[in-house]
C-alpha cells in the first residue's frame, strides 16, 4: 500500500512538475479557504479539490481505477478535476477586486514568470499544409497510393514517417506502425526487425520479411546503409522523393495483383 501511495505521489509530482504555478494555485486556495463566504464556491473550489487530492493519493483508489479496466498510465487524469487555473484566477479576482489594474499586472506577470510557455516545445513546428503532416509524406503517399480506391497497397516506412502515412491515406497499409516504436509496448514484427534493428540493412532478410507480409513497397532514407544495392536483388526504384528512395518489389506486386484480379472476378 505504501508503495502505491509513493507511486501516486510521484505521478502528482510529474503532473504539477512541482513548478511555481502550483504554488500560485496553493496560495489562491489558501486565500479562498480563509476569505470565501459563498458556500457553493467553497464547496467546489476549496473542499472538493482537497478531497480529490486525498482520494488520488489514497492507494485503494488506484487499485479500483486499474481494477475497473482503466489504463493505469492515465491515473493522473483524476487531477484534471482539480481546476488549478480556475482556483488561482478566481482567487486573484477576489483579492484584487478593488485594484484591478494592479491585479492584472501582478497576476499576469506571476503567471508568465511561474508558468511554462506552451508553444515552446520541440514537438511544435510550422505547419506545412492543412493536414499538419509533412509534405514529404503526402508526396510519397501520392506516389504509391492505389489507383482504385477499393483496393489497398502495403508499404514499409521509416520510423520517422509511420505516424503520418495512415493519417493521410487509409488505403495505404503498413506491416507495422507506431506500436513498434513505443518503448513500453514490446511487440515483435519480422519486418521491423529486418528494417530497423540492424545498423546496416540486410536486403535479403528484409525482402524475405516483406514478401511474407505481402508488402509491395519499401520506403527507405537515402542515407540508410544496406549490405547490397536493393536494385541488385530485383527491386525497382520507383522514385526518389525528398531524400527517400521508393522501391517496388515486383514479386510481391505480382502476387497482390493476382489476388486483386481473383477477388474482382469473384465479385
Amino acid at each position, binding site marked *: 500500500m505504501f508503495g502505491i501511495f509513493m507511486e501516486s505521489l510521484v505521478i502528482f509530482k510529474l503532473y504539477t512538475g512541482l513548478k511555481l504555478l502550483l504554488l500560485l494555485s496553493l496560495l489562491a486556495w489558501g486565500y479562498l479557504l480563509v476569505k470565501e463566504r459563498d458556500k457553493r464556491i467553497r464547496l467546489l473550489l476549496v473542499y472538493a479539490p482537497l478531497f480529490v487530492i486525498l482520494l488520488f493519493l489514497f492507494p485503494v483508489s488506484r487499485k479500483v481505477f486499474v481494477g475497473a479496466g482503466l489504463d493505469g498510465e492515465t491515473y493522473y487524469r483524476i487531477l484534471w478535476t482539480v481546476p488549478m487555473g480556475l482556483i488561482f484566477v478566481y482567487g486573484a479576482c477576489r483579492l484584487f477586486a478593488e485594484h484591478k489594474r494592479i491585479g492584472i499586472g501582478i497576476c499576469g506577470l506571476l503567471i508568465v514568470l511561474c508558468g511554462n510557455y506552451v508553444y515552446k516545445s520541440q514537438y511544435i513546428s510550422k*505547419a506545412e499544409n492543412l493536414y499538419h503532416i509533412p509534405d514529404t509524406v503526402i508526396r510519397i503517399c501520392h506516389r504509391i497510393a492505389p489507383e482504385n480506391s477499393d483496393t489497398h497497397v502495403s508499404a514499409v516506412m521509416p520510423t520517422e514517417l509511420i505516424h503520418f502515412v495512415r493519417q493521410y*491515406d487509409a488505403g495505404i497499409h503498413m506491416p507495422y506502425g507506431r506500436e513498434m516504436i513505443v518503448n513500453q509496448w514490446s511487440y515483435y514484427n519480422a519486418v521491423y526487425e529486418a528494417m530497423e534493428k540492424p545498423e546496416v540493412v540486410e536486403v535479403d532478410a528484409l525482402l524475405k520479411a516483406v514478401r511474407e507480409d505481402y508488402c509491395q513497397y519499401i520506403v527507405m532514407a537515402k542515407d540508410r546503409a544496406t549490405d547490397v544495392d536493393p536494385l541488385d536483388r530485383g527491386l525497382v526504384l520507383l522514385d526518389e522523393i525528398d531524400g527517400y528512395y521508393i522501391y517496388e518489389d515486383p514479386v510481391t506486386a505480382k502476387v497482390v495483383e493476382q489476388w486483386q484480379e481473383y477477388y474482382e472476378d469473384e465479385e
Partner: protein
Amino acid sequence: MIVLKVLGLVFWLLVVPFCMGLLPLPLLERRLRTPGVALIAGYILMFTLFELVGIPVVLYALYNGFTTLIKIFTPIVLLCALAGIFVTWKSIKGGKAYDFSLLSGFRESSWEEKLVMGLFFLLVGFQLYMAFTKASFDGDDAYYGAQALIAQQLDTLYRVNPYTGRSSPLDVRHALALFPIWEAYIGSMCGVHATIICHSVVSLVLIPLTYVLYGQLGKALLGKRKDLLPMFLFLIALWQVFGNISIYTTETFFLTRTWQGKSFAGNFVIPAVIWIFLCLGKEGTEERKGLWLLLTCLNFAGGASSSLAILLSCLMTAGYGVLFAFRQRKPQVLVKAGLSCVPGGIYVLLYIFLTHGWLVP
C-alpha cells in the same frame, strides 16, 4: 468550392449546435437564456445524441457502419435543431424572455474593462492563429487521426487496426469514445478530409467554445461583480498559454492536442460539471430542471471524448452532490445527482462488460 466547404463547417459546427442548444433554454432561468449557454448546451446535446446513435452502430454494424451512422444521425440532429428554433419562437411568443443581445454588457462597461476584454480577445486570437499555423506532433494521432480517416475512407468503425490497416476485432477499449468519428462525420458532411478537420478546423471552434464556457463560469463565480469578468477571462487565457508545467496538464492538452477527445474531456466536460453545479447551487434559482437535464446529458456525452471522462464527470457529480446535500441540508440534491449519473453509469457498465469480453458482438 472552398466557400461552400467553409459555409458547411460554419453550419455543422456553429449553427446546428447553437439551434440544438436552444431546445433546453426554456427550462433554464432567464439569466441563462443566452447565446453562450445555447452553444454549450448544443454541444452537450449533440454529443449525447452522437453517442446514443453511434454506440449501437459501432457494436452491431460490421460493414458500412459510418454510412449507417450518417443516415441515422443526420436527420435526428437536423430535427433537433429545427425543434430548437421552433421552441424558442413559441417561448418568445408565450412571453419568456431571452437575453440574446451579445454586446449590451460590453457597451455598458468602462473603457478599462473594454481594454482588458480586447487583450483577452487578442490572446484568444493568438491561440487560434497558433492552432492553425503550427503543427503539434503527438504520437496518439497515429491512432485517433487514423481512426477518423478509416471511418471516412473505409466506412468502418473501430474494426481496422489504425496503425497497420489490417482488419481487427472491435477495439473495445476505444469503441465507445466516438470523438474521432464525430470529426470524420463533420468532415464528410462538408467534403473535408478528416485529418484537416482534426488538425486545422476543430481547434478553431473548440478553443472559443471553451472560453464561452469559462465566460459562464466567470459569471457564475463573480455574480454581481461583472466588472471583474474581463480580468477573469484575460487571466484564464494567459494561464492556458503558460500552463504547460508538464505534458499532462489540461492546459497542455488544450492548446497542443485540442482535437483529441481527452482534451475535450479535460477542458470542456470537467469545467462544464463545475459550471452546472455553480448554477445549481445559486440561491434563488427557481428553474433547476434544465440544469439537471444538461448534467444528465453531459454525464453521458462525456463518453464521446473518452471513457474516463464519463467516470470523472459521474464521480464529480456524485461527490459534489454529497457535498451540496450535506452543506445545504437538501438530501434531494443527492437523489437528483444520482439520477443524473444513470446514463453515464450504463455507459460505464457497458465499457466494463466489453473490456472484460462480455457482450462483445
